[in-house]
């Protein structure tokens, strides 16, 4: 059995990916997960050409910084033995392959629809016929919430099975946000329009997803990003992390009815997003990242401005966080609420923030670094209890860490350079994989080009794709009244999942 070992952002010829019989493919990809706690699946998807279907599995090794790529050619009809029973992190990937291509997955324990995409193999499956798990019991009752929720958030349906106030089981039905972004990425030929699409994958992670898209595009067109391009994107990525973490801390305070914390943190997000507007004209960083160019170079004036903002932000942020962390009414809601065990997090292949709150030091900035992170020696912040408290304190410390990084980077601002846009034409018949640590966690985009050097397949994976299962596990045996605070402490993406 062989496989190909690549690194982050590397472009390879599609034919170089070793193709193997399914038994070998199965052993290889389940073997890594079973034998090494450093391995997790970053993407597993199908590439359709005519009647042929090529399954490509990409497993990242956090210990070596490598990505192992292997492929299995199939046709979509041949039944395949599910890998989920042995390696549960493949669970949703296999469901997705089944839903998109109709591949019969044998012995999959939970072969349910993922998102009801417009191109699903079985059009008789509809949102209204989702096969929820249910228990026939006189004592237990079910609670259905959504797709429209009480607040201003994205749609999804949550079905709880409860014993009194206690949640026994939660099943999350997604797909309401499906907009067909992957198909549009291939269909639209205009590069700027594709970049705009990348911004819409998850609007709260516009910098993260668009940066990943640009990395893919620039790697495929062999365009080496200049220092100012890398600099601006990395700074913006850390500012995005700070802004969203601040907003989420505010929302957590709202859910424990701590009004002061909610108000103060809510308004503290404003200076960060307003700075993004001063820099790039948009509070959420849309229109900021574009392939092959640095549209908004960072200047010393901006640096002075951000330094002032940080000073004021830091003072007020620390004051309110110190208060929250010694407030019994808040702590009693955070501690031991919504626990995800390390074993569960590892089994489901959790990434990013969720993994790091469960004792797993999984962070692309440390394990598969590129750009400014290569010289940073980034030490991920890790918490061990996997509860709301861990997620709240992780966010607090990550804000401080990001702020320290940005301050350090502001000491040396690279010269602005002249840019030529990367060629519209990409390397033909090539494969690229790009990983970026967004604020939620690892974003993975994979692209495959055709004979003419245009996109043939574009696969997007938001960290939420792994982490929704963590939320479902976290709320078990919790009071249903604690669901909002659990949900908000994760703040997973519906749009990023549904695509």
């Amino acid at each position, binding site marked *: 059995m062989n496989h190909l070992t690549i690194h982050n952002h590397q472009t390879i010829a599609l034919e170089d990916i070793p193709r193997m019989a399914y038994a070998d493919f199965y052993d290889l990809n389940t073997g890594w997960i079973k034998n090494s706690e450093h391995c997790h699946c970053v993407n597993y998807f199908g590439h359709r050409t005519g009647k042929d279907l090529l399954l490509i599995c990409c497993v990242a090794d956090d210990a070596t910084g490598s990505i192992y790529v292997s492929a299995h050619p199939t046709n979509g009809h041949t039944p395949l033995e599910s890998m989920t029973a042995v390696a549960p992190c493949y669970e949703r990937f296999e469901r997705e392959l089944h839903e998109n291509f109709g591949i019969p997955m044998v012995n999959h324990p939970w072969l349910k629809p993922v998102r009801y995409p417009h191109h699903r193999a079985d059009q008789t499956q509809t949102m209204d016929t989702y096969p929820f798990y249910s228990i026939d019991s006189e004592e237990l009752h079910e609670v259905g919430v959504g797709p429209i929720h009480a*607040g201003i958030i994205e749609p999804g349906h949550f079905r709880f099975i409860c014993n009194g106030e206690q949640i026994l089981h939660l099943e999350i039905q997604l797909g309401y946000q499906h907009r067909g972004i992957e198909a549009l990425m291939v269909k639209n030929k205009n590069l700027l329009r594709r970049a705009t699409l990348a911004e819409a994958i998850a609007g709260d992670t516009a910098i993260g997803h668009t940066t990943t898209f640009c990395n893919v595009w620039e790697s495929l067109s062999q365009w080496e990003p200049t220092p100012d391009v890398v600099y601006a994107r990395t700074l913006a990525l850390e500012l995005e992390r700070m802004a969203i973490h601040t907003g989420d801390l505010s929302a957590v305070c709202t859910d424990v009815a701590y009004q*002061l914390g909610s108000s103060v943190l809510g308004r503290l997000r404003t200076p960060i997003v307003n700075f993004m507007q*001063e820099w790039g004209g948009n509070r959420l960083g849309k229109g900021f990242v574009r392939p092959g160019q640095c549209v908004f170079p960072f200047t010393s004036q901006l640096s002075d401005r951000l330094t002032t903002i940080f000073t004021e932000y830091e003072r007020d942020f620390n004051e309110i966080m110190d208060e929250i962390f010694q407030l019994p009414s808040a702590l009693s809601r955070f501690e031991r609420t919504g626990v995800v065990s390390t074993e569960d997090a590892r089994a489901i292949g959790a990434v990013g923030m969720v993994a790091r709150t469960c004792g797993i030091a999984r962070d692309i900035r440390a394990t598969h670094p590129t750009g400014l992170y290569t010289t940073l020696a980034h030490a991920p912040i890790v918490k061990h209890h996997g509860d709301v408290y861990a997620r709240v304190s992780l966010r607090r410390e990550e804000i401080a860490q990001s702020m320290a990084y940005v301050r350090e980077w502001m000491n040396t601002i690279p010269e602005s350079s002249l840019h030529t846009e990367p060629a519209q034409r990409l390397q033909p018949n090539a494969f690229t994989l790009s990983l970026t640590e967004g604020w939620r966690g690892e974003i993975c985009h994979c692209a495959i080009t055709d004979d003419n050097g245009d996109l043939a397949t574009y696969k997007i994976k938001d960290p939420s794709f792994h982490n929704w299962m963590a939320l479902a596990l976290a709320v078990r045996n919790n009071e249903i009244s604690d669901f909002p605070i659990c949900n908000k402490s994760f703040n997973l993406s519906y*749009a990023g999942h549904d695509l």
Partner: protein
Amino acid sequence: MLSNIKILYHQGKQFIPDVTTAKVPGIFRGRPVISTTTVDTQALTDCCPMNAITSAPVAIDLGRCTFCGACARRFPDKITFTTDYQISTNERERLIVKEGDTGKVEVNPASVRKEIHRTFGRSLKLRQISAGGDNSCEWELNASNNVQFDMCRFGIDFVASPRHADGILITGPITQNMARAVQICYDAIPEPKIVVLAGTDAISGGVLADSPAIDRTFLDRIHVDLYIPGNPCHPLTIINGLLDLTRKKTLNG
């Protein structure tokens, strides 16, 4: 308790006193102005990834525009984006800014349904529906209610149930998978009711307009009372738009 009061004191005054005149910081891209300078019109219309620019006369459709500013960087003499954030209107055609136009994009009081001023003039409760929204407009709608923008002070609120609502505010292009939920929610709101579309995706489908996964037929069945452009729409655009729609303006503005 004392530490809470101290924190409260340290916040100073956060709210924006006058949301109609507040200045937005930086290079915010709001209402565009198109000069009458002659440029290569073909190159101008082609440079817009959203096909929001049309020729003869040159015009930008703010219902399609993502305010990325690509056109203004390429043709700085032709197009400039001002920081004017008051760009919400109740008429779809008004979102089209033509060359030479310098006037505001605003609500036309003459075409606002009469019951809106009478019924919602002092209190408006909206049910928000995200129907394929990417969570950027949703963030900004939440921000409209923070202590700085503080939309509640005008009696405008978002409520949990359509039964408590006076209308819906939709973000996102309306996906097929949300189409039924949008209709059910709309039907559950008592008459009279309004419909507001917030953000480029909601107004025109935006970058997702040509997707086979969206279903915008709901919009063929209802009357849209307010368009709030932006990608995402700025909180001040949201607040001013809703105020202009519901408050009866005098002739002097």
